[in-house]
């Protein structure tokens, strides 16, 4: 009897404390029912996945989520104008290279305002379940968390196994050098319009991030040294840039006009044997409606350079526009927390998104179903990932414009590599000098 009473009391206590602890999205969202928020989406698989899941959130919360789909190349302009001019975007889409600019200008609300509020924070938020490199680079600036990783990429190598086998290779190359010296000649037949490799290099962020920076790191080079001076004329950087120049022999002509669409399409149509692209393009390449190589598709980590595996890192976090009303900000937070949450991670992956959560990738079945996951996870691991693959400071967009132009001109042979690198370095330092990094007052954050 006594034991029974104790048990009963304990159960009652549990119920009471259970009620206090039980956080539910529905309850948290109740005061914001009817609020309408607007997000920025891109025309990429992760956003289609989110669009599929949004109705569930709307149903559970009564918050109305709309979005505007923008071309990537216009999405920064559009958001900057929106922040400055007071537009209607509540959920900002922050590319890894915009976080510095957006955060330093005060355009984003620090997320601690929400996750420190028990009424708004999901107890399962678990920020430490995000891959540290993703949360740090896509979402954090100067130690403050502004965004949660949403559309997460690692550079991977996608290849056409059938073409490789036909040319006598068992598998993909392990190093960049191997790719050029062995795979290049064997897989290139210009008369038949067949090429070993395609490196998307269109002027724009594609040139600066996907093409230019991609060849610096594996060869031990970098854009800037520790003092923010140009490191482009270092032996390693020049080696990387020269390598890209030499590799063009095995790429389709007009590679400087290839954007992601063209590179992915060239592999999907069997024109090239290998590409290094963002992990996010896996669903496109694996879709029989858009790809003729579904059965031949292979995916692995990017090739290694003399400096080891230094894969491209890119992606977007979702953040809250500090110019929106309090209700809109909170509704936006609840949406961001939900769509990037642990609970949604699996659904998100299955709908074609790429979650930044570590937990979800412990699921063996998922690893087996999506062959891009293991190399991607490997690329994100702490000892591999290059968190500052591109500097994230507010000056990057301006530098990116310069690199995009001079980088393409270099590829076209309009300027020679060494001269171009020196010239580009001067322009980069000029921008950083104007920004005040060399006066010693401005912290060297990237």
């Amino acid at each position: 009897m006594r034991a029974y009473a104790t048990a009963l009391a304990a159960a009652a206590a549990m119920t009471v404390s259970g009620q206090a602890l039980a956080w539910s999205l529905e309850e948290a969202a109740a005061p914001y029912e009817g609020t309408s928020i607007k997000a920025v989406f891109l025309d990429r698989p992760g956003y289609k996945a989110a669009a599929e899941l949004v109705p569930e959130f709307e149903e559970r919360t009564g918050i109305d989520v709309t979005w505007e789909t923008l071309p990537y190349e216009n999405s920064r302009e559009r958001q900057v104008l929106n922040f400055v001019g007071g537009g209607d975007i509540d959920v900002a889409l922050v590319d890894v290279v915009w976080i510095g600019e957006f955060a330093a200008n005060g355009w984003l609300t620090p997320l601690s305002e929400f996750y420190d509020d028990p009424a708004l924070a999901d107890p399962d938020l678990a920020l430490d379940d995000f891959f540290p490199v993703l949360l740090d680079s896509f979402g954090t600036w100067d130690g403050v968390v502004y965004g949660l990783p949403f559309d997460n990429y690692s550079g991977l190598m996608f290849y056409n196994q059938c073409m490789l086998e036909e040319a006598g290779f068992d598998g993909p190359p392990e190093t960049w050098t191997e790719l050029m010296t062995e795979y290049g000649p064997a897989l290139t037949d210009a008369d038949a319009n067949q090429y070993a490799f395609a490196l998307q290099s269109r002027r724009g962020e594609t040139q600066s991030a996907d093409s230019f920076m991609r060849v610096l790191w594996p060869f031990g080079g970098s854009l800037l040294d520790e003092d923010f001076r140009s490191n482009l004329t270092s032996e390693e950087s020049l080696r990387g840039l020269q390598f890209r120049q030499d590799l063009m022999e095995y790429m389709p002509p007009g590679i400087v006009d290839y954007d992601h669409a063209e590179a992915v399409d060239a592999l999907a149509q069997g024109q090239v044997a290998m590409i290094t692209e963002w992990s996010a393009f896996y669903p496109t390449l694996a879709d029989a409606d858009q790809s003729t190589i579904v059965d031949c598709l292979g995916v692995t980590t990017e090739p290694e350079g003399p400096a080891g595996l230094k894969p491209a890192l890119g992606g977007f976090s979702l953040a809250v526009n500090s110019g929106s009303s309090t209700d809109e900000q909170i509704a936006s937070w609840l949406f961001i927390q939900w769509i990037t949450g642990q609970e949604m991670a699996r659904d998100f992956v299955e709908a074609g998104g790429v979650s930044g959560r570590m937990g979800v990738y412990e699921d063996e079945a998922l690893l087996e179903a999506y062959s891009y996951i293991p190399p991607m996870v490997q690329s994100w691991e702490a000892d591999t990932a290059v968190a500052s693959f591109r500097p994230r400071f507010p000056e990057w967009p301006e530098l990116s414009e310069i690199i995009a132009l001079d980088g393409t001109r270099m590829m076209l042979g309009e300027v020679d590599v060494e001269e171009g690198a020196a010239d580009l370095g001067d322009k980069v330092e000029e921008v950083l000098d104007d920004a005040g990094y060399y006066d010693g007052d401005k912290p060297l954050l990237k």
Partner: protein
Amino acid sequence: MSSRSNTPAFWFIAPSVIALLAIGLAPILFAVFNSLHEYNLARPAAGKPFVGLENYLTVLTDGTFWSSLGRTVTFLVTAVPIQIAIGLWAALLLHRPGLSFMRSVARVSLVIPLATTYAVVGLIGRLIFNREFGVANDMLGWVGIPVTDWLGDPTMAFVALIIMDVWQWTPFCTLILLAGLSMVPKETEEAARLETPSALRILRHVQMPFLLPGLTAILILRTADVLKEFDKIFTMTRGGPGAATELISVYIQRVGFRVFDLGLASAQAVVLLVFCIVLSRLYIRYVYKEAEL
């Protein structure tokens, strides 16, 4: 003209003048003001300090600005002579007696390029000149010309852009020159035909004087239009590959709305405006020379 009061004229004209002052002139004055300040939209913390002529100094020493202006001139001196030559050829065909039904069909078809939205012209160009599935390479293949990388190669991208420009604006030249040809008195032309069978000689001695005003108009208006050229390039090449097709308006738009350096972009715009004003002075001087006003 009668000696009646001119007061009504004021009331007739005032609304349109006020409107144009407000939307055409005020922004230009504001641009001049901005051009004297450092003003980057993406750096709100930096404020908007007065910097005097610094932005103009930057324009003068900015290699990219002058090379995009140089590219604009190259575009002009390549495209316009082609447009005039083909336009004249077509105008002579349309002027020639006979085949009147076919001639009216041709005249009407000339309207299509002129009415096509510039941005769409660029989109069509990007489709037609696609290296892999574009119809241009397909058709050139019929006559044995190998696959050309139109939009990926700097020179060919420039050529492709010129081809689309020629397509769109040659009819403009044709129609202007045709108007000139129809001013030639019938008797003079017929007399000349009896005298010489050479169309070239008739063109040179009889028709040319009537074509000159039109040619001047073409030269000046096309120059102004090439300085404006933006929409087509934006949709066809975005100024690429590299900077191969980055004409002046495209460059200013990039500085203003991608780098958000509105001070510098304003200075560039003011410099461009000076060119525009010089052009319109020339236009007025040579084309409206005999306008009875």
